[in-house]
């Protein structure tokens, strides 16, 4: 289970004069601090897929970065499978598979070398890494490009490799930041099938997306973040019930006026 309570994160503004007019009007700008996330809470049980929604700049990526231990929260708690992320970040990282917005692959290494490197960083034995790469390559249809340098990969190839890298150590919870952005239909389907498989294995999955059809297809729960606060957190059914129309209408109804 992944559980977040009252999560907040503020950043010191280096040079307030350089802020755009829109940024200056953002209510999250308080003095010399920008409160990117002010109060976010949600939970994702084992075997659930949680769709994290929100307009651009809502605080989704900052929330996921705090979940992944890349950023330290200013307030609130994050627990992954009972491990306090703040108190035991190294233990939490071993339990977590994280795919950031950027695929983040080393171009001069092959797909296999990229995945192996992160497997070793997670302390996975070499033989286990070899077996796991074969398994993931079959699941994500990667065999044809696995031993090529990543600098020659298409967006879809990169994303598949990045996903394989994120789960090489068989994490107990998975977080994916916009995993289907920029992918073609076939690659998107492979990624969605992979998420479905994680769900079947009882792994909690949180993924942020702008594609509401993916939410409809995969998610058990939906959390909407806007201006650094949780605006909606509930089941997919409850989210759908927010409007009689489409998920699009439901999403818009959760946002603050003026969005």
């Amino acid at each position, binding site marked *: 289970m992944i559980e977040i309570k009252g999560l907040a994160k503020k950043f010191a503004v280096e040079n307030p004069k350089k802020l755009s007019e829109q940024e200056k009007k953002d209510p999250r700008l308080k003095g010399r601090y920008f409160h990117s996330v002010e109060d976010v809470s949600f939970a994702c049980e084992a075997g659930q897929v949680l769709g994290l929604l929100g307009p651009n700049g809502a605080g989704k990526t900052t929330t996921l970065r705090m979940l992944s231990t890349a950023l330290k929260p200013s307030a609130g708690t994050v627990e992954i499978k009972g491990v306090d992320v703040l108190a035991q970040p190294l233990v939490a*990282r071993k339990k977590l598979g994280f795919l950031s917005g950027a695929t983040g*692959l080393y171009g001069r290494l092959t797909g296999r070398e990229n995945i192996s490197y992160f497997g070793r*960083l997670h302390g996975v034995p070499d033989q286990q890494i070899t077996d796991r790469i074969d398994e993931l390559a079959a699941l994500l249809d990667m065999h044809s490009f696995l031993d090529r340098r990543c600098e020659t990969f298409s967006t879809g190839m990169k994303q598949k490799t*990045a996903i394989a890298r994120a789960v090489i150590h068989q994490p107990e919870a998975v977080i994916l930041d916009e995993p289907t952005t920029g992918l073609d239909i076939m690659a998107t389907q492979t990624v969605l099938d992979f998420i479905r498989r994680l769900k079947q294995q009882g792994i909690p999955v949180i993924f942020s997306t702008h594609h509401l059809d993916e939410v409809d297809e995969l998610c058990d729960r939906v959390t909407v973040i806007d201006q650094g606060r949780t605006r909606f957190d509930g089941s997919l059914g409850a989210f759908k019930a927010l409007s009689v129309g489409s998920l699009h209408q439901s999403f818009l109804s959760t946002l603050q006026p003026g969005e």
Partner: protein
Amino acid sequence: MWLVFRKELMELLRDRKTLFFMIAMPILLFPLIFGVIGFFTSKAVEEAESKVLNYALIGAEHAPALSQAMADSDRFSRVELEAGADHAALIRSETLDFILTIPDNFAIPPLEGGQARLVLLLNDAGLNMVHQRVSELVEREIQQKRADAFAHLALDENQQQALLEPIVLEKQDVSDKRENWGEKIGGLVPYLVFILCLQGAMYPATDLGAGEKERGTLETLLISPIERHKLVLGKFMTIALAGVTSALITVTSMAGWGIVLSQGMAIEFVAEFMGAIGLIDFVLMFLMLIPIVAIFASMLLSLSIYARSFKEAQSYMGGVMFVVILPIVLATLPGVDLDSGWAWVPITNVALAIKELIKGTMDYYSLIAIFGSTAVIAGALIAFCVYWFNQEKVLFR
């Protein structure tokens, strides 16, 4: 840490740019520089030597032998001057290469007529051999006049020598060859090696910090279950190794090509010089280099990780070069030595210590103090680098 180091090294060695800057350029650059300079210099000298010089003589009647010698040479071509001609203008317009004015007293024996002062009017800007070529002809006249004068005075060979050089100041150097050469070129060695280390470390540092940020790989690395200091040290060691390797390759390349290009002339010099420096001193020099490389690598990595992009990092690197070059240049200046308080100036003191090691005049107690203080600075900078790597405001600017 070793896992990060191995991976960074593998990636670095697969980068064509790094290989070019670290290996190919040092190997190819020096023969290229030497070759190009040598080719153009020898070509220019050859042209200047073989060029037929257009000249005019004023007062040729006072030096018939000299005048005849010039006329007989196929490398000189005499031009008659018109009355009232602007001599300087003729030279500047390259109508004439020189005008030689011979004074009235040239034909008179020196003991009677005194010193004859010939005036050579020429344009001496640029490479030309005019003075040398005219001197060769005039020298014959000088020898002849001197011999005539000595004969007239009936001086023996010793008297002639004493008259030519009444007092001789003979230099007897108590310094050995090593100290002598060390004083002359010892300051250049640390200058060269330090700069090359810095230059060799710059590109990898930019790639391993700002490059990772720009490519989006840093975030993934930061959330791996590895302590931040191990991550930093893995990167730091890769950068340091790249710097040292680059410096060693460059120095070896320079020495190798120097030997090849001088067709063996340098072998004797290099062998003698190297032979004079003991193995322990070489080891000590290398040991002194370690904290220096550590200082460079940690400075570069800190700046690189602060930068938002590869481009921004590169602009910071230029500043580092300036900051580092100043204390190194100080060590090459005359009068700057370890006895005059410079032992307290970081980087300068190591450069001076290496110079003293080359000369063989190092006080080993001072060396320990310099190594210790530099190692402390290096350690502090590495610690700062680790601290820097833990700062969100740096990593997620």
